[in-house]
């Protein structure tokens, strides 16, 4: 289980990006974190990844505190961030350098086939389209078989068509080993199609506003009325989160505080 306990972050320049964010994420669960700009969602993800240390609170994966990048946690960024001097195959195998070459080669080949880029093994990253490059990034993150995969607006730079395609593809890949997915997004459609649970955040400072469970069987039909219904709920929550007059709906952060008074 991934346990976030009152995670907060204040940057050295004084920006209060995230305040006491708590959530427990079960193994194999898909959680989408959504919110307007400046709500600290990327900050939160970087804290979970161990790339930045939280100023307050703790991130724990199976009781182990995360303070630096961890072998069981993989991350996919908004940009593919492939290494331009490595072929596609070498990029995918980048995280397997501690394994013998033949084991690595086999895993890379399987991953290439799995993301549908078997014919691109020897290509350079520059020769790929945006969608292909992001597939390589997904393969690179998944090949070491992380228990938790973090995604920071992974498809936001892609066109709508490619985005849908990759969302479906991601679910398909997730089904192989069922890692925990924590996805940061600003796309309501994406959150509802992927997640078991959507966490809506509100900005300045970033904190949890509302939690919406998506009780829809997969694969989800983007056209169904149920799907629309959940989308509307997330959208309403988002709207309310930006309204300063609405108090924090999260019982853990405000109600507790009120009782202390």
């Amino acid at each position: 289980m991934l346990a976030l306990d009152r995670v907060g972050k204040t940057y050295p320049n004084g920006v209060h990006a995230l305040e006491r964010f708590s959530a427990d994420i079960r193994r194999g669960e898909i959680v989408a974190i959504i919110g307007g700009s400046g709500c600290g969602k990327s900050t939160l993800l970087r804290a979970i990844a161990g790339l930045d240390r939280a100023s307050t609170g703790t991130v724990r994966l199976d009781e182990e505190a995360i303070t630096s990048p961890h072998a069981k946690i993989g991350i996919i960024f908004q940009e593919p961030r492939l290494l331009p001097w490595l072929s596609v195959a070498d990029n995918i195998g980048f995280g397997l350098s501690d394994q013998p070459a033949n084991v690595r080669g086999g895993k890379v080949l399987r991953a290439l086939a799995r993301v549908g880029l078997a014919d691109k093994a020897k290509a350079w990253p520059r020769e790929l389209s945006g969608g292909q490059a992001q597939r390589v990034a997904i393969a690179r993150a998944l090949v070491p078989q992380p228990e938790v995969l973090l995604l920071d607006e992974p498809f936001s730079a892609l066109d709508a068509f490619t985005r849908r395609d990759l969302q479906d593809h991601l679910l398909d890949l997730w089904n192989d080993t069922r890692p925990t997915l924590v996805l940061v997004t600003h796309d309501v459609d994406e959150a509802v199609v992927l997640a078991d649970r959507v966490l809506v955040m509100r900005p300045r400072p970033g904190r949890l506003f509302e939690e919406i469970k998506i009780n829809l069987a997969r694969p989800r039909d983007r056209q169904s009325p149920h799907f629309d219904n959940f989308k509307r709920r997330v959208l309403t929550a988002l709207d309310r989160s930006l309204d300063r007059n609405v108090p924090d709906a999260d019982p853990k952060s405000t109600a507790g505080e009120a009782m202390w008074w």
Partner: protein
Amino acid sequence: MAMTVELPALERTDAMTPKASSKASSARLRRYAGPALGLLLPVGLAMAWEIAVWLGYSNGRLVPPPTKIFATIMEMAKSGELSRHVSATLSRVGAGFGLGVVAGTLLGAISGYWDLARRLLDPTVQALRAIPSLAWVPLFILWLGIFETSKVALIAAGVFFPVYLGVMGAILSVDRKIVEVGRTFRLSGPAMIRRILLPAVLPAYVVALRVGLGLGWMFVVAAELMGASEGLGYLLLDGQQLGKPAQILAAIVIFAILGKTTDWLIEIVTAPLLRWQDAFGRQGGGG
């Protein structure tokens, strides 16, 4: 390289498949046509001058025709003079270039990698860089004597600055996002340098080496003009003092050949390491 950039997007992807061989062959034709086009002007001018002298429009005493220059070179080659002068110059450039590259790489890497060192070191280096390097000549001669040491030192000083700047700038401009990828895969310090920083810095480093080499050739002339008994620079001075323009031009031609060849050697040696960049030129950016 630059010529294929304007290929339309559809042809780019085709260029990899065999069925587009006609396009590939036309691309090959253009690749050879490029250098040939560049040769047209110098070769044409040389031939025109040759003919002008041959027809008697000029006596060619101050500007000797190509055949005369070529004959001078052959004559020096036969007498063994040429190899003596060339090897003297080459060894000076080699030693100065080597020293300059080692010093520039080390200090540049330290300044680029280590913030404190940069703040400590860089202002001084930049101030020294602002001094025209030839201004050091009298001092170098006083300190190091008129012989080899001062010449090598001058060349090394010329090579040092572009290499230092290139290495430092390259390290500073390494994409932090790529470094972060290394961090997420928990690379150790040495692994980070070997697998992320070195390959990221390499293209700019090669450019810095080539600029440094160019300056090395420039400074060897200055060094040899300030007093030498052998070397291509000595041939220049000797030709001027004894009124032998063919010898001067012969030395200049050899300088050009050597400069181009050594530059080309760096290109050849580093080409396999920069193949991924080459793909960029050939594919025109890949979408």
